[in-house]
């Protein structure tokens, strides 16, 4: 019997799980994918927002402004790289200056610290590559950049270390309220049947479906797709801060930002779609974000794109987060409709969900042995020559470079597989170590990483996948020698 089953292992589900792991509770996370952070959490703008954007009085505004300062300590505890670069909203003509003033005013109402209006000279000094059209900007010093899947993985690892259980490849198929009026559920997946007192619905774009399965409130989340291009590190220094344009009703518009790893990220656009799994990119969409980003930062070279991707925002009906106890089903707590600034709000969302659970009758007794810290991850490429020397002497597997583009060693990949909730597939290794994330996109290292996965997990190579499920990488062995011998005769034996 669980106290809480968290449905969804994205950044919200993992934040909530980690928050609940502070207390003497039996908690588990059920995730339909093979790893944490495989939905919206892996494909977004990777920004910690300042908080001037959301409507004053909204939950979005409140949790954004509460969440932002928590990142300093959170990232220290979890050993997650985070940088407060600041952000700017640029006015690309005189008319848009009024929009900046409105945003400034909204930020003031939302109690966002460190907001300043910059004139053209100050803007140019801050962002030398900004468009000549940019006349002014709103600067927010508390905004920052982070790797969203590093954060999600770190939250999950820390939750796990503090006793939270995780189930992967576990899509919730049925939810039974065992005693209507009392918090008591049976949560069924294909292979699991979990009894729990409370359910936290953190199922991202699918949270509306989970509510329906549980017989809870009816709401519809619109999947709104956003496409991105990630550019080579040689473009990364073109932007120092996160550069937004004046927002529209569809969202914050196309941004240009350095990433925490030193690449340049551009995107997203915003298109409502039907299919909640459709994270495909489109030619028109990629052209749209490149053109959009060029308005603010004309000088980046789109040919330096190393990959493009799309993520889905879970857009709630009233454009505000849906974080509350269900009105019909007791014990069902929603953390739904978490579109932007969901990543920023995540730690504050977790606290709010915990408070709602407590108000709903869940006794939250602090655990004495809760350890907020996650052991740091060794990154060979971040070390000095002396540190690298020492490390390789101690463990020679750190002397074998597997990913040439990002300088990732065998030791780091083995550690990523062996860590708690370790990598189980190629993408899991990639998100934990960056192997395969560089400019060759895994061309050289994927055969080597697959070998390591097969060795560590004791799997045949043909069962190593890209991202779990049916994402196999090899169709099978090549022909046996006697078979090829027959056909090879057509080509004088040289093939």
């Amino acid at each position, binding site marked *: 019997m669980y106290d809480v089953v968290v449905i969804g292992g994205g950044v919200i589900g993992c934040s909530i799980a980690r928050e609940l792991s502070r207390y003497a509770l039996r908690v588990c996370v059920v995730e339909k994918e093979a790893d944490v952070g495989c939905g919206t959490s892996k494909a977004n703008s990777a920004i910690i927002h300042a908080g001037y954007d959301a409507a004053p009085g909204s939950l979005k505004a409140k949790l954004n402004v509460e969440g932002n300062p928590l990142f300093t300590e959170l990232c220290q505890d979890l050993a997650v790289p985070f940088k407060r670069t600041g952000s700017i909203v640029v006015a690309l003509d005189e008319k848009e200056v009024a929009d900046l003033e409105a945003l400034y005013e909204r930020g003031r109402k939302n109690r966002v610290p460190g907001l300043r209006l910059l004139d053209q000279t100050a803007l140019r000094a801050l962002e030398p590559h900004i468009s000549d059209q940019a006349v002014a900007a709103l600067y927010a010093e508390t905004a920052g950049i982070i790797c969203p899947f590093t954060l999600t993985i770190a939250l999950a690892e820390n939750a796990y270390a503090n006793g939270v259980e995780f189930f992967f490849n576990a899509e919730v198929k049925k939810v039974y309220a065992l005693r209507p009026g009392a918090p008591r559920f049976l949560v069924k997946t294909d292979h699991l049947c979990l009894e729990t007192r409370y359910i936290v619905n953190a199922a991202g774009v699918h949270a509306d479906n989970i509510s329906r399965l549980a017989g809870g409130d009816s709401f519809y989340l619109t999947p709104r797709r956003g496409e991105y291009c990630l550019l080579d590190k040689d473009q990364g220094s073109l932007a120092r801060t996160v550069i937004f344009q004046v927002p529209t009703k569809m969202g914050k518009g196309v941004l240009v930002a350095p990433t925490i790893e030193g690449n340049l990220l551009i995107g997203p656009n915003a298109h409502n779609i039907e299919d909640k799994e459709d994270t495909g990119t489109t*030619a028109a969409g990629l052209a749209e974000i490149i053109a959009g980003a060029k308005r603010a930062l004309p000088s980046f070279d789109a040919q330096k794109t190393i990959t493009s991707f799309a993520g889905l925002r879970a857009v709630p009906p009233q454009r505000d987060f849906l974080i509350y106890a269900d009105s019909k089903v007791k014990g069902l707590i929603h953390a739904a409709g978490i579109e932007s600034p969901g990543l920023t709000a995540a730690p504050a969302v977790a606290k709010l969900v915990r408070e709602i659970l407590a108000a709903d009758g869940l006794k939250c007794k602090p655990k004495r042995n809760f350890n907020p810290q996650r052991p740091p991850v060794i990154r060979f490429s971040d070390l000095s020559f002396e540190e690298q020397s020492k490390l390789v002497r101690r463990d020679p597997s750190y*002397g074998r470079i597997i990913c040439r583009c990002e300088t990732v060693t065998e030791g780091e990949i083995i550690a990523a597989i062996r860590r708690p909730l370790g990598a189980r597939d190629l993408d899991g290794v990639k998100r934990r170590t960056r192997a395969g994330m560089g400019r060759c996109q895994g061309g050289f290292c994927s*055969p080597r990483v697959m070998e390591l996965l097969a060795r560590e997990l004791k799997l045949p190579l043909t069962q190593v996948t890209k991202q779990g499920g049916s994402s196999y990488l090899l169709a099978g062995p090549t022909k046996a020698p006697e078979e090829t011998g027959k056909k090879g005769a057509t080509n004088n034996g040289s093939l």
Partner: protein
Amino acid sequence: MEAYDLVVIGAGPAGLAAAVAAYEAGVKKILLIERDREPGGILEQCIHNGFGLFYFGEDLTGPEYAARFIQRVQERGIAIKLNTMVLEVTPDKWIIAVNKADGLLKIKAKAVVLAMGCRERTRGAIFIPGTRPAGVITAGTAQRFVNMEGYLPGKEVVILGSGDIGLIMARRLTLEGAKVKMVLELLPYSSGLTRNIVQCLQDFGIPLLFNHTVVAIHGRQRITGVTIAEVDPATKKPKPGTERLVSCDTLLLSVGLIPENELSRQAGIALDPVTKGPVVDDGMATSVEGIFAGGNVVHVHDLVDNVTREGEIAGRSAARYILTAKPVPSLKINTKAGAGVTYVVPQLIHPQQMAEELVLSFRVNQVFKDQKLVVALATGQGHKILGTKKRMIMVPGEMQEFKVKKEDLWAALGQEDGSSPLELTVSVPEEGEDHDV
């Protein structure tokens, strides 16, 4: 710290040839550094034939070709460190490398030859839209899986791009029992060698569709198909209404190669924006003194024979740099890609130190039939034709060569003392244009 006269980075065909050539020129303290587990570079996975026709006058497989140079390296007792990755090369020729056995290595070299080869362009670089499932793989990676690891990446294959590796893999996968449905080429002509189109596609009845591309990738976990479309040859944009769905479990990409110059960039070496490799002179010297480069790290070749030749030049020049006092040559000729030409290597000629014969390597930017090739030198005094040649066919997929004799170049130079800029242009002038002086 270790010290060597010459450190060669990369033990593929260019690096092996450079090491042997430097040794023959009198440099004995040489170290070859190779990141893979065996020397030979990409040749080890190229188990098809067609290697060495020019250099050896024999038809060899990739591993056979490599083995000859590996043997030469071994016979000369040239040191080689395998499974060793160079992390940094400094302009003053310190090399930081790492492997399991030695740990971190700090090596001082008198001269360095860069021979890191090239890598494949990926899906991201060419903006193929759609989902991101498993089964989208570059042709070279597929080749490694099939030929070295013994695994088939898929059974129903569409190949995008008619580069040589894609063509070779079309045949290879067919022989392994996969169905190769088609090869798509964005351009109206192939970027691969004609012999490969004949031997790898036509002989197996695999259709090659020019002016076609993949406009979407489908499938959530494993690729289930691609949408292909015809493109307008003028704009390279898909023609609306020509889209059709082709089911497949694998999309193989053979969409070009890019020289690997992360180390060169770190060392502050000037790179050519067109070749994406170092700017080199006729001796394969880069812009940083004592650092030379050869093979695919400089520009992408079609034939390994030429890679070897460039590696040898780099090795010999490095040896000369190590062994002799080097007078700075005062005369300098820049080469230039003229009309119809994409690039010319070397980018720089030092006529005072050049060999008796210099090979200019270049690529044309379109298909030319029965067109005249013109190599001309512009000096302070005017414009002199060094040579013209009518060629039956020149295609972008096949590297062109033009040999310049030292005596001819000096004759054209006349009394030049380097006070005015000198420029050697390779061009394919349009019919009717008068290029005689």
